[in-house]
């Protein structure tokens, strides 16, 4: 491989970039999970399927209706979010009072179904989605070549995560949401429509996964199982970060992406497993997770 110092750095920065991009997706997905968990106390096993749904929706929209990338970036998350709203309202709410493990199993079953339907319709080999024209160029940096689209993913993810964080931590709507997390009964008593907030929150969390799917469509192949493997990594990240804080979910997501990228460079054999190993270490040293509150 690399023998010159310059080439070494080139490879290192390349892998760091890949890591940052993966981290962007980890951050978006774990943020969505954390938001949903905050209010509903459930983990959405279908989050990976929703990410896949987002990518497929973008691909289908371009293929059959001619909706371009930029429009898809707005429409698809809304559509996926709507699927989430329906899911919460008609499937999850009826069993909200049962053990939370049941809602977890429910979302797992839904994920199997959605993935199965797309495998049946489009096969398991991936579809390709062209990078939008505006972002096909790139910039030459001292140690690496930075394609515009990759830079865009990182910027978009950081901006969306930042806005979500700001909305939850600094606005009145966010205050309702945090209050609902603390004590839903009291909120309800104050005349706030808690079930509606729960439904919309679920839709928003799922919509984030849809957005991640659209962002991913041009660089990863759009395939039915693109979400399930990613989701398990995101679960490990959630365990590492703990679900105590929104900011924690974002930072852990990006951080783990970078660690994965570095591993790809220094010890590629472990790149698949490094995040799980970090999880093991965190469980040994700080079982509640880096940002976790529960014991």
């Amino acid at each position: 491989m690399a023998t010159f110092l310059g080439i070494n750095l080139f490879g290192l920065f390349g892998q760091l970039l890949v890591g940052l991009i993966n981290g962007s997706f980890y951050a978006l997905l774990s943020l969505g999970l954390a938001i949903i968990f905050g209010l509903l106390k459930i983990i959405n096993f279908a989050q990976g399927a929703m990410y896949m749904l987002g990518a497929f929706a973008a691909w289908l929209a371009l293929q059959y209706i001619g909706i371009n990338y930029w429009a898809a970036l707005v429409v698809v998350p809304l559509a996926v979010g709507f699927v989430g709203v329906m899911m919460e309202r008609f499937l999850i709410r009826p069993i909200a009072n049962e053990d939370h493990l049941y809602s977890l199993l429910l979302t797992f079953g839904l994920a199997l179904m959605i993935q199965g339907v797309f495998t049946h319709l489009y096969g398991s080999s991936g579809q390709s989605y062209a990078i939008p024209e505006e972002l096909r160029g790139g910039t030459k940096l001292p140690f690496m070549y930075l394609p515009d689209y990759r830079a865009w993913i990182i910027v978009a993810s950081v901006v969306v995560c930042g806005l979500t964080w700001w909305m939850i931590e600094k606005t009145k709507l966010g205050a309702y949401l945090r209050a609902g997390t603390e004590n839903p009964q009291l909120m309800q008593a104050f005349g706030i429509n808690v079930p509606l907030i729960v439904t919309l929150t679920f839709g928003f969390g799922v919509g984030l996964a849809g957005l991640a799917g659209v962002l991913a469509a041009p660089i990863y192949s759009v395939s039915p199982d693109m979400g399930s493997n990613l989701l398990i990594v995101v679960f490990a990240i959630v365990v590492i970060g703990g679900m105590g804080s929104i900011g924690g979910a974002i930072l852990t997501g990006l951080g783990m992406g970078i660690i994965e990228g570095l591993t790809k460079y220094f010890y590629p054999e472990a790149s698949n497993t490094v995040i799980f190993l970090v999880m093991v270490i965190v469980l040994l040293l700080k079982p509640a997770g880096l940002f976790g509150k529960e014991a």
Partner: protein
Amino acid sequence: MKINKFYLALLLLALVAPFFLYPVFLAKLLCFALFACAFNLMLGYVGLLSFGHAAFLGTGGYVTGWLMMNSGLTPELAILLGTVAAGLLGAIFGKLSVKREGIYFAMVTLALSQLVFFIYLQAPFTGGEDGMQGVPRGNLFGVIDLSDNINMYYFVLAIFLFGFWLVHRTIHSPFGQILKGIRENEARATSLGYNVNDYKWVAFTISSALAGLAGSTKTLVFQLASLTDVHWHMSGEVVLMTLVGGVGTILGPVVGAGVIVTMQNYLSGGELGNYLHIIMGFIFVVCVLAFRSGIVGELQKVWKRNFG
């Protein structure tokens, strides 16, 4: 003792079954029934949902497969070592995962089993994507030829009965009572002076060793160990079997495994094979929404209402 007669009838049925049905299919069914019983020990009696039990099934299978192909050990020893290996892995997993509860426990076990999946994918001894093929069945105790399907079936039946008995014994022992106590009210169990995490850990280790026993036996039956057994789909399947049969009932996992394995067998050959995952997902959703007690659980309710 009405219940004993019932079990005796079931045992008789199991003894004559290979003369009417394909023995390899029956052996497969028993392997999955044992796997589901092992899983149910955690979900049904400790209240912890493990989403990583495929790791133990697969580990048992790979270790037994490797030993049969490379060591010249007799099958019962290869199975024993496969079970021990899965139990050791379970002890490690258990130490890590019982620190977290509920949903976190499910995520930790899922992530750990994915770690194992990647290790087996890359490790040279597992054969990677091809798996281990043509594992010899060998001679039981060096004398009984297991390549005969009927012999194999009775061997599997004996293993299953041992596993089933062990789960039954565990649940009805003082240890099992404490596990149920933890499931019902963990804080109370702690305040009574029980080290809750230790009990969970021991239960998890037993459960994973039994899952390994199921995997070891399965490898011998099919003469194959592959990544399918370690994949998270398999972890999901065992959850589904237990859910369909009835979580927290003794016979539920056996019935559930019977239903799901039979269904897979009929579907995978025909037109509907492509729909297998969709159908399984659908059964999951229906079970959770409308049928949470499972087949055995519902039957018990009916029994209690009419004769109880």
